[in-house]
């Protein structure tokens, strides 16, 4: 068990190093002349040189990389060019905001999609099953900004129930903040529902087919007890893994949702960094997104192994 977790953490660290290289190449090597890229073609050469000097882009790529990683590790990430604040502060505040939005989305989507998936599985092959499976798949495939547009049109403009922005007026209480976050969270719910429901459905169908389920039925246990005691306990395991993987997807979705609903989370911070060519913030922000994803999948894997005796005892799988 300890060995499994140790190995898993080691692999995550290797992945993290590769991830940092990808981000470094994407945001610091590809632009070529970073200073010129930030200031634009009309800027004075002296200003470009000065900015390059300040950002350290005249150093060799190797020392640039280690300066950057060293800074991230010690918490000294430099300053954001757009926000004119330390990058660590910008990202810290943004992550807290994004976390609020993500939690609300997950509180709605996880029970809903598991219920949908299990219900579809219990009615496998029926019209209701096809409706949930295909409907969920289609909802998932439609881009988040399309959902946002449709939901805003219906719930904000037509019915006037929810506001078009996600940011509550300053000084709003807890309940008000949640109220402002419901519509953006709904967009994420639509996109996440299909994946999680599909996993829950597949897991349930597999468990329904298993020998232990057949034994329980033959023993004469009522269907309800079989589903609760034998099927669900096993079918929801793989679903946990998918929920965590979706946390990573969610970060991509936040980029769009936070931009549309004008919400100051990590997605909007990255978007502003990209549109205004704030390469230092962009690189570190994307790295943080990757780290959040890796940590989420690591926790999911460990949870899965703790809950699943087959992995825990080092058997198959």
């Amino acid at each position: 068990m300890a060995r499994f977790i140790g190995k898993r953490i080691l692999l995550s660290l290797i992945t993290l190093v590769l991830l940092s290289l990808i981000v470094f190449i994407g945001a610091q090597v590809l632009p070529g002349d970073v200073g010129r890229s930030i200031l634009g073609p009309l800027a004075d050469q002296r200003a470009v040189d000065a900015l390059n000097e300040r950002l350290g882009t005249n150093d060799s790529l190797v020392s640039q990389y280690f300066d950057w990683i060293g800074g991230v590790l010690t918490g000294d990430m430099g300053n954001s060019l757009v926000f004119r604040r330390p990058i660590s502060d910008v990202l810290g505040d943004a992550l807290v905001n994004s976390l609020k939005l993500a939690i609300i989305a997950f509180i709605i989507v996880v029970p809903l999609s598991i219920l949908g998936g299990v219900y579809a599985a219990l009615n496998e092959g029926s019209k209701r099953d096809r409706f949930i499976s295909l409907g969920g798949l289609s909802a998932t495939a439609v881009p988040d900004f399309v959902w946002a547009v449709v939901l805003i049109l219906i719930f904000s403009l037509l019915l006037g129930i929810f506001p078009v922005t996600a940011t509550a007026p300053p000084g709003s209480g807890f309940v008000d903040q949640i109220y402002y976050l419901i519509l953006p969270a709904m967009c994420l719910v639509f996109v996440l529902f299909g994946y999680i429901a599909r996993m829950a459905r597949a897991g349930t169908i597999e468990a329904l087919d298993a020998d232990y389920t057949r034994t329980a039925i033959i023993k004469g246990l009522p269907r309800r007890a079989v589903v609760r005691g034998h099927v669900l306990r096993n079918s929801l395991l793989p679903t946990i893994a998918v929920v965590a993987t979706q946390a990573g997807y969610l970060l991509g979705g936040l980029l769009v949702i936070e931009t549309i609903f004008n919400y100051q989370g990590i997605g909007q911070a990255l978007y502003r960094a990209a549109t205004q060519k704030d390469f230092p913030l962009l690189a570190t922000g994307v790295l943080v997104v990757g780290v959040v994803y890796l940590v989420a999948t690591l926790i999911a894997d460990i949870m899965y192994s703790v809950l699943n005796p087959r992995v825990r005892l080092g058997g198959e799988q």
Partner: protein
Amino acid sequence: MSTVAGTNTPTTSAAPVADEERKAQRERWALLWKSKTFIAGAIIVGIFVIFAIFGELIAPDDPFETNPLNDLAAPSWDHLFGTDRVGRDVFSRVIVGARNIMIVAPAATLLGTVLGTILGLVTGYYRGAVDDVLSRIIDAFLAIPVVILAMVVITSLGPSNLVIILVVGLVFAPVIARTVRAAVLQEVGMEYVAAAKLRNERTLYVLFAEILPNVMGPVLVEFTVRLGYAIFTVATLSFLGFGIQPPAPDWGLQVFDNYGLISGGYWWPVLFPALAIAILVVGVNLLADGIAKAFER
């Protein structure tokens, strides 16, 4: 694609086996044409393909022609979907707007599928260290959402369709490689591969002429599934302003362009391109679902 694949498997397989394989392929296609989801998907996607090719001929108006005297006109018989903020006909722009996404998304998917298939064949065949290295690289790429990765590269290199195709294709490749690799692993142990090796066939021949035709099913399934994701990604990038630039009649760009007007009650320049994206995506998914059901083993 796959019907050819079945008949192409050369010599060593005895005649009855080849016949059986051909029959299985025929059954798969028959199954496909009986699948309601596949037909529905094919019709939807087919209509958009026609829009993409013959857009200007079908569109009632010039999608680029502005008319300041008739901006933001509500939908009417003159302008079915109304006009946008510079008076362009939204209906015409939705029809011609199919073209950009119908070129970029399939091109990116094709690039990813070709690269991924090659990668999957090679790693599945050799296994070992190549495999471990690849898995780590895949994990690293998967840790960043495609949209964010593409945004970084486009910020660095400037927006262009070529950059989008390359980024999306490159990110999809390892994911497709993983599926192909799993299929290849099942094939490597088969007798026909051993026979080809005994005949002293070159490795390239074994990979592409012997194994590839037998894993075309999963490759095709993966292609259609990825196509859905590619449309999602390309539309999202356009919407964020990182795709094709104005005044091109691209759906994502149209939503981006007119989005600010929505709270003023001008919903039509935003809703119709958004619906077009949704319908195309659902069509591709129906298609993918039908193909997956017919080809999955």
